[in-house]
């Protein structure tokens, strides 16, 4: 079914799409081009002169141990956030789906974190986990005896940003899982109950497979979120430290460019990020229509 709208005025349709095109060009295409271009130059710190160096910037970053370590950090961070988020939000959604149908208040509370700005979420966790004044840090020490100080301990810092990013993203996942669960016809679950499947078996053999499209979609969304969308959260919470323990690839782009004033390296890194995003998008579009759909 094709629905076409015909305009009598030949200019009007272009005017209607113009805002979107302008936004795309100004905020997306142009910066991308700039990044691509800058990646091929070395610029002095004050921006007075620059010199074409070809792929030297790329050679430099891939030789940089700090940058390679950021890959590892990003991978650990991204996978942990994705797995944690999806497991927790699926659990919450299943619980909500059971009690819900009546109470929307529960759902509203679970959605709230998504409305919190990333930087504010970062500050929130910064205060809660602060080794001197943070209440959660105090609890951890009181309960387990371990000293919590993510300023010194790199692993603790990484755990902190993982928890903060997960907390932030759970609401979004929860919403999609809940919608997915509610779109599964009740009769299917009832039929399985009559077919002698217990609650756990019903979940794993009927509900979970039918959620596959939602799950796959969220998997990609969460990976993209964790890899590229967590800069402000990490920056506000740990600032990438200590000793680069929480420097993911995006944080590294910022540090090289705005802190280190090495625009060429920063641009080269963002080109690498671009390639990764593109690869993930292709993956998503290639597989989302196949396999996952039953």
């Amino acid at each position, binding site marked *: 079914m094709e629905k076409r709208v015909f305009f009598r005025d030949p200019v009007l349709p272009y005017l209607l799409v113009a805002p979107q095109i302008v936004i795309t060009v100004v905020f997306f295409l142009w910066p991308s081009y700039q990044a691509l271009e800058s990646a091929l130059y070395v610029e002095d710190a004050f921006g007075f002169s620059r010199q074409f160096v070809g792929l030297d910037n790329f050679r430099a970053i891939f030789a940089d141990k700090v940058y390679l370590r950021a890959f590892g950090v990003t991978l650990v961070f991204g996978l942990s956030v994705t797995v944690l988020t999806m497991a927790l939000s699926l659990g919450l959604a299943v619980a909500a789906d059971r009690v819900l149908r009546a109470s929307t208040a529960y759902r509203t509370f679970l959605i709230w974190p998504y409305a919190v700005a990333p930087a504010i979420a970062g500050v929130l966790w910064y205060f809660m986990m602060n080794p001197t004044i943070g209440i959660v840090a105090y609890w951890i020490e009181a309960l387990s005896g371990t000293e919590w100080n993510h300023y010194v301990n790199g692993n603790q810092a990484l755990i902190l940003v993982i928890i903060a990013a997960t907390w932030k993203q759970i609401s979004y996942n929860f919403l999609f899982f809940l919608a997915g669960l509610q779109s599964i016809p009740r009769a*299917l679950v009832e039929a399985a109950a*009559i077919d002698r*499947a217990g609650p756990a078996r019903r979940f794993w053999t009927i509900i979970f497979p039918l959620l596959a499209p939602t799950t796959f979609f969220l998997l990609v969304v969460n990976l993209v979120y964790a890899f590229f969308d967590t800069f402000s959260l990490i920056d506000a919470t740990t600032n990438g430290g200590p000793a680069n323990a929480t420097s993911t690839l995006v944080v590294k782009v910022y540090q090289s460019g705005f802190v280190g004033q090495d625009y060429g390296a920063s641009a080269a890194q963002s080109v690498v990020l671009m390639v990764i995003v593109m690869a993930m998008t292709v993956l998503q579009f290639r597989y989302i229509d196949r396999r996952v759909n039953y």
Partner: protein
Amino acid sequence: MAQLELNGLGKTYAGGVRAVRDIHAVVEDGEFVVLVGPSGCGKSTILRMIAGLETITEGELRIDGIRVNETEPGARDIAMVFQNYALYPHMSVRGNMEYGLRNEGRPRAEINQRIDEAARMLQLTALLDRQPRQLSGGQRQRVAMGRAIVRNPKVFLFDEPLSNLDAKLRTQLRAELKALHRKLGATFIYVTHDQVEAMSLADRIAILNGGEIQQLAAPLDIYRRPANRFVAEFIGNPAMNILEGHMSDDGWVLMDQGQPLLRLPSPIADRAGQPLAIGIRPEHLHPAPLGEGQQTHALASLQVKVDFTEHLGADCIVHARLENGATVALRLGGNARAIAADSPLSLCADPADLHLFDRQSGQRI
């Protein structure tokens, strides 16, 4: 194979709505019972209570004498066919059929044998490796039945299984269902809103309204002796004609504007002067030659004006209007000639074909 006992079964929802009340029935081993009624009458709720998908708030349900109120659906040894088939969309036809058996932990060989048997019975053998979305509505319905059959349950439950199919397929599957029941000899409980399905399939029909059983009897008994006005009007198409009237002191049944309808052979003394509803089926009204519409003891008679005539091939339905505005329908044979609109017509009926109901309670007199 099982006997089913419903002792005062009732359902009150958390909001206080009482959907079903005081259902007493015994379904015998191998019987085919159809629950029929208008939407919201509680028929599906009763079926779901039997299945265990809905908790029972009042009364007791027994299968083969054992109370199962608190038993999980899977442990009741029943199978259910849903209105929308409820096939597992991510499993093949075979996967759908073997799911229950695998949950029971049956050995592979037995599962395969049972599936082959059921597939042959339902002509599904060629479709076993298809996905549900590749099947037509009728095929899906067969798979849903196959999934129930392989389980070899004590009781089969059907929740409006044919209502999503087109008319022709419905007729065909109705016949297959009847044959299946005969072959399996199992206890069937079947919910529908379609009176034709109820009449053609059931050993006994339970007619429901407002969450209560109005009448539980064999199809023809229900048709011939409806227990109350609701049943009389619900079963039969066109519906039974109901005329408002009352009983005179000397045993005449009078219509409300005073026209005497007939004289009862033996007047019911305690009903003298009381309001009545007089029911008569369309096929029991016959046209009488004009001028012969005299009241006699033998025939009840009515003067009507024809509204319009419907020729249905085998039948011819004439819709007419009484002087007081009430409408009646009469069924004539397929060879009847059309009667011009507005022409006067004299109708008569055998008093034995009349059904009298108390106008207040609606109960049959």
